[in-house]
């Protein structure tokens, strides 16, 4: 049996042989980071006027997270006779009705994100049978993927139904981001599978439709 000293020695030797990275494509990686962080319209934005700029990166995460947090109580089980859930319930995997609250601007921001991701996935679902994707698809998916991950990392508690949806969105968007310039049948098939098996688009549409319903 290997003793502690032997193991320590062997592990130290692994420095030269275990998962040693080749030179990474730093320039390509920077372009993607730059697009997310410094391009006009990127989220989060930097370079805001002096009083806001120190707080905006945190505020962006909190606002988005808070926006989803505002949706959370309405997606769980009914808490009292005065609160009603229209449509589906969390137990059947369909997000319940969203009722607008006093935090409407925050809910609006989360809705914008949901609209963008729905539009992308609907377009994609229409295009994948042909195997041809618009050029902007991967760029958009990358931006939405970063937002999705910020939302998932938000300090706000997120309802399990929303969490599941974000998990599935993250999965699909990451697959899209990894697509080569000319995707093959296998890559397209994986995306179709992810969209179909988890009913991603119907769940998004249900959430958006309820969110837009007037009071």
């Amino acid at each position: 049996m290997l003793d502690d000293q032997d193991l320590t020695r062997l592990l130290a030797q692994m420095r030269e042989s275990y998962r040693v990275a080749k030179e990474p494509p730093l320039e390509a990686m920077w372009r993607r980071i730059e697009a997310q962080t410094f391009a006009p319209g990127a989220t989060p934005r930097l370079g805001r006027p002096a009083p806001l700029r120190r707080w905006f990166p945190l505020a962006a995460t909190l606002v988005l997270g808070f926006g989803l947090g505002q949706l959370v109580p309405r997606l769980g089980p009914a808490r009292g006779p005065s609160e009603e859930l229209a449509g589906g319930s969390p137990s059947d995997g369909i997000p319940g009705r969203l009722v607008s609250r006093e935090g409407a601007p925050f809910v609006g921001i989360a809705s914008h994100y949901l609209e963008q991701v729905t539009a992308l996935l609907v377009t994609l679902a229409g295009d994948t049978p042909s195997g041809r994707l618009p050029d902007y698809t991967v760029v958009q998916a990358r931006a939405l993927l970063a937002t999705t991950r910020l939302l998932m990392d938000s300090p706000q508690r997120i309802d399990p139904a929303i969490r599941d949806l974000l998990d599935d969105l993250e999965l699909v968007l990451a697959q899209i981001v990894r697509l080569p310039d000319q995707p093959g049948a296998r890559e397209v098939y994986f995306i179709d599978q992810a969209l179909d098996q988890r009913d991603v688009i119907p769940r998004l549409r249900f959430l958006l439709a309820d969110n837009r319903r007037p009071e």
Partner: protein
Amino acid sequence: MVDEAQLIAGVLAGERTAGRELYEHYAPRIYRLVYRLVGDEDLAQEFTQDTFIKAFARLAGFRRESSLGTWLHAIAVSSVLSGMRRVKRWRTREAALDEAMDVGVSPHSSQPDLKDRLREALDGLPDKLRVVVLLHDVEGYTHREIAAMVGAPEGTCKTRLAEGRARLRGSLGAFARE
């Protein structure tokens, strides 16, 4: 030698060049660490990018309780740990798909030596244990640095290290000391 305070101020002011400089200084190191942890080029690139995107988003909240490098490493390790949980779900789905599509896996063709076995054993450790073993025994970070990166108390990290090493010794049990 980079002036961290100046770079941070520049990034917060929206200066692309400051962001670029910060990235160029830390990205190679972060990438090497991330690749060590995940063993896949695509994933390493993705997690490294995530690290910097998150870092720039949170930079206003950086309180300088540690060095910027340590802080970036902490974000990288966190991105890896949360990212690998998702990757495992993808791989489970893809493995099922591979089975359905009759994609074969070629078996090992030669008898593995001790280092091969150690590599396999490291790959087989749970992510939380492997991260600590790699950071301490392969990368050479101190317990204090590891605790800051992993976001857990030093005691917890030491326990994970001991557990990881015990499992490695167990996996290598067939190879006697020379």
